[in-house]
């Protein structure tokens, strides 16, 4: 038995020193926003006026007063002086927080700011309260009124439509396949994935896409974020990564070791989640979406965000109100 002397001060220092290299290593392999595509408005200039992103937002429409007052949902937001949006600020292409104190940028962030501007008028872009929702909390937060709307690469599904309303679709994404670059000639579509180990994100529709289109995969892993999935793919824990094409293209752009193969094999329509209690919200938001599509703002926003990771011209926008399910 040795008597132990307790010197908490020294112990704490030892512990901190011991934990340091781990912390540093962790920081080095955690999500590194620098690895994402530069959205031409992200960290470089805050997405302000003069950038393609800033110009796209500035070109958005503003609703006439009577249009807003005709909708109880929009009137409430106007009285409140801010739009409360549920979503994420950690998605490279769709909604990324600014590191320089500017507004968030990305396709979903842009739609959010355009909607705020549409309802609240000049300066509405800055009157958004961004609340973090996860895939676990999205429906619940819409239903109980914690957020006015959810704009978060939110796929429209029949099950979700039972509990909430979806405005839109405002974007037609597609589920695609990413592989290690050395395998890009052997895998070209979901039919090549039989017997392989697949990985997808836990909060994605990739899970359903694999279930519907891949016969007998060896194993389907789900991980919480994009970085873990890419690590699993590169380290050989999995052979293919199935997810939304926009995100996968962002990965290929940042990392030459991984490549997107083939064309998207499932349509993945994104909608704006709204409470079923606000009857008029759905119509109001669909009108707004139609206006930004007609005015060309939608295409400008696409070009400034998703267009950065997908080659080619902006696609034809979907028809709001034309639900796919």
């Amino acid at each position: 038995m040795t008597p132990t002397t307790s010197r908490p001060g020294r112990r704490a220092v030892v512990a901190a020193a011991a934990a340091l290299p781990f912390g540093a290593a962790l920081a080095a392999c955690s999500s590194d926003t620098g690895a994402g595509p530069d959205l031409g408005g992200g960290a470089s200039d805050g997405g302000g006026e003069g950038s393609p992103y800033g110009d796209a937002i500035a070109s958005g429409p503003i609703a006439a007063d009577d249009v807003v007052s005709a909708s109880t949902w929009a009137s409430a937001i106007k009285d409140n002086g801010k739009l409360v949006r549920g979503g994420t600020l950690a998605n490279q292409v769709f909604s990324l927080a600014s590191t320089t104190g500017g507004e968030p940028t990305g396709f979903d962030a842009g739609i959010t700011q355009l909607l705020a501007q549409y309802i609240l008028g000049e300066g509405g872009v800055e009157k958004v309260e961004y609340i973090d929702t996860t895939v676990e909390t999205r429906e619940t937060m819409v239903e109980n009124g914690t957020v006015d709307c959810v704009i978060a690469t939110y796929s429209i599904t029949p099950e979700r439509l039972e509990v909430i309303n979806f405005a839109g679709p405002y974007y037609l994404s597609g589920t695609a396949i990413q592989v290690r670059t050395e395998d890009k000639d052997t895998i070209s579509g979901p039919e090549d994935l039989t017997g392989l180990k697949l990985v997808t994100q836990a909060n994605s529709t990739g899970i359903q896409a694999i279930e519907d289109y891949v016969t007998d995969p060896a194993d389907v892993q789900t991980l919480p974020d994009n970085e873990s999935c890419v690590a699993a793919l590169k380290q050989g824990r999995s052979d293919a990564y199935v997810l939304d094409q926009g995100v996968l293209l962002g990965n290929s752009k940042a990392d030459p070791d991984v490549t997107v193969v083939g064309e998207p094999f499932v349509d993945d329509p994104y909608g704006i989640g709204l409470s079923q209690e606000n009857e008029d919200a759905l119509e109001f938001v669909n009108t707004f979406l139609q206006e930004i599509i007609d005015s060309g703002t939608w295409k400008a926003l696409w070009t400034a965000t998703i267009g950065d990771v997908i080659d080619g011209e902006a696609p034809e926008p979907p028809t709001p109100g034309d639900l796919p399910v």
Partner: protein
Amino acid sequence: MEAIVENIPLLLRGIGYTVALTLLGYVLALIVGTALAVCRVSPIPPLRWAATVYVEIFRNIPLLSLLILIAFGLPDVGLRLPYFWCGVLGLTLSSAAFVCENVRSGINTVPVGHAEAARSIGLGFFGTLRFVVLPQAFRSMIQPLVNVFIGTVIGSALCSAIAVSEITWVTQTLNIQYAQAVLMFLVAGAVYLGMSLGGAALGGALERAVSPDGHAGGRDRKTLDVAAGAQA
């Protein structure tokens, strides 16, 4: 409810993984933690230091960080374990540090005179531990070790972040499909509650079995008696 009824096999498999992660992690942690505690009270300074460094590292690193390091950091230095074993390893490393400290404080509750008496009748270091110190220390370790067990149960949920399809992972997956978050998480919560209560009940029974006066928490009753006496 259909989300549950239609997926009973998947849910059961998830519960199975949760139980397996917890039991493997905890049993291994008991072994490793006890060995570490023996090192910490041993007369050999390098062993004491090594065990102390171990405890301070693994007690102070968040389990989630540890799991991600094991799952995605180790492959970069050439060690790629299956996800499930990454989970077991993470739970073991973390819980062992807590077990070690509980065993050590249990050992410290045994009066030093007992150890000296054991030495004087010719028992060596291990003999002293085995026949005199540990049997007595065990009694005061039960409740803290139940706490470590509950920590391991709850910690197993974090393994969902490294693709182990335990009950939290199953819950998240079904929620994507059915959009029934509250219901699904109540189910998962009930599983953890059941396991934790089971562990606590087992601990209470053990305590009763080894306590000298035949009921658990004899000390608690004493404090109640004192309180009652104060009122009288």
